[in-house]
């Protein structure tokens, strides 16, 4: 499903060069639930962002769903992300100016879906995460757990094959974290969605199919 070959990421400033990822070779199979762990600053999020085409590697090759991402135009890249990928972020990244339903509809907005279709799919996604009674609320009126559920609903509304989650339980207490984790496990098991999750939490990582550990930008396990 996702294939990373010799991925390297270097951050350069005028005075310093930092190697964030070094020679990463990784393959994520279809329907797999993979977690990535490692200490802070080891490059976990950078790796996830590169997998999600949110960032470009300095070197190496990415293949997603048998398509090698190389010299994609802005439009093609946007289309690819829209069709294949869903994202969940630690800090939710909801648009505070829009109500819950509109936030969830966001990926559908960039597809040729009618307004009715969008509302229906978004309502279904919200039902799936148990938030159908909050459609008209604004993100600022929700708790952290509720916000993350909205973010999950937004990630799954377009039925992407891959979900990339960057510490989805990082800002939540353990009970809420477990609930979110259950939703993700269900998505993986019932819908066959491929999930790659970055986490600090060993207990959460244990619930996934496979664990990859990074240290100083290098894959150690």
């Amino acid at each position: 499903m996702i294939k990373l070959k010799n991925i390297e990421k270097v951050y350069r400033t005028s005075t310093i060069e930092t190697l964030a990822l070094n020679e990463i070779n990784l393959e994520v199979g279809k329907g797999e639930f993979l977690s990535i762990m490692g200490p802070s600053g080891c490059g976990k999020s950078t790796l996830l962002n590169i997998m999600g085409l949110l960032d470009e590697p300095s070197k190496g090759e990415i293949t997603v769903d048998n398509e090698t991402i190389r010299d994609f135009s802005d439009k093609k890249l946007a289309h690819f992300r829209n069709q294949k990928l869903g994202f969940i972020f630690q800090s939710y990244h909801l648009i505070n100016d829009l109500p819950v339903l509109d936030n969830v509809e966001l990926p559908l907005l960039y597809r040729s879906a009618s307004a009715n279709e969008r509302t229906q799919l978004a309502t279904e996604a919200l039902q799936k995460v148990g938030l159908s009674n909050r459609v008209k609320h604004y993100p600022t009126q929700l708790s952290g757990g509720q916000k993350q559920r909205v973010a999950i609903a937004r990630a799954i509304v377009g039925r992407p094959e891959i979900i990339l989650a960057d510490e989805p339980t990082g800002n939540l207490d353990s009970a809420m974290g477990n609930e979110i984790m259950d939703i993700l496990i269900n998505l993986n098991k019932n819908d066959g969605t491929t999930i790659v999750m970055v986490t600090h939490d060993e207990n959460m990582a244990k619930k996934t199919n496979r664990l990859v550990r990074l240290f100083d930008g290098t894959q150690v396990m």
Partner: protein
Amino acid sequence: MLKNYLKITFAVLKRRKFFTFISLFGISFTLLVLVVITSFIDHLVSAGYPEWNRDKSLYIERMVQRDTAQNGQTNGPVSMYFIENFVLKMTTPQMIGFASYPNTVNAYANQNKIKLMFKYTDANFWNITSFDFLEGKPFNKQNIDNNDFVMVINDDTRDKYFGKGVSAVGKTMELDNITYRIIGVIRGCPVTRIYVASDVYLPYNTSKRDHTKKGLNGNYMAFLLANGPEDFPKIKAEYASIMRKVPITSDDKWFKPNKVESTADTYVGSFMSQFTDSDGDTKKAYLYMVLVGFALLFMSLPAINLVNVNISRIMERASEIGIRKAFGASSKVLTYQFITENIILTLIGGIIALILSVGVIYFINTSGMINYADLTINWKVFVVAILVSLVFGLLSGVYPAWRMSRLQVVNALKGGE
């Protein structure tokens, strides 16, 4: 999609009240000033009551006599002598009329002093202009030939002198120790129609001034009515040939002019003759160029302000743009979103400006600042101003969106670092 754009636009406008206020204030205030100024200019230069013939009239209102040896010059209106002996001899105009520049005189009604503007005119003046006669009629050639001491007054003067709405025709009025009989009352016109506005109009031959004086400069202007603007070159050419033959004389010991200049100009051209020596058409083009230049310069203020406000909004909205990009928005789609937001902002500014302009123009017309003011909104200018603002709105949306589109999604999500 558009509905979503609108939703986010109004949400952003509502959330950033101060930015919204600054942007809207910039747009609407500029448009307001532009619309009011242009409607005033339009009021000044366009044909309007009672000068509906302005577009097919040429004006002779200035004569420059130069003494090139001593580097001296006299510049002013033409004399009665010049009009009678040279201008009235012209054959190309359909009609020739003349009038003096207005002077002021005091009249007394029931011990109350009334300051009045008065003007001497010939009979043709009333045919070239289109004054509405509320009662009576204008003086004609017969009155002038008979040396009748008759006058036409405007309704404002009638109301002040005789009382509001009281009939004045047949009554007399004393001006400068001369008693005139009122034969007509006109609906007054704003003082901004400077060539024809007055409170009182008198036959030119009732003036105490000695019209036999042979000087070229005096206190008069001539109106040359053409069949249409297509006759202007012919009339101008005839006048130019007359000017070449005008004998230059002077009784002055010190000032010995050897060159005289005067042109028959369009209204705008004659108006602009104060600023430039070129002929009327060039002056007109020059005037328009200056006005358009000013307007564009003026319009660039809210545009720069909008660009500035939008750029400062970038960082704040970087995360939103990052989110949208992550979920499939291309740079083009985001550019459209920004542009839509700016267009909506500009249109709201335009609507506010329109409402304010109507209010300000109504205030100017009714406040009495300009008597008989009849300013109207120049829709052409308003539409052009809105279009130009929209273009600026577009530009101010494209640039920030372009900057944003260059950001990596991951950087945008972090707040545009």
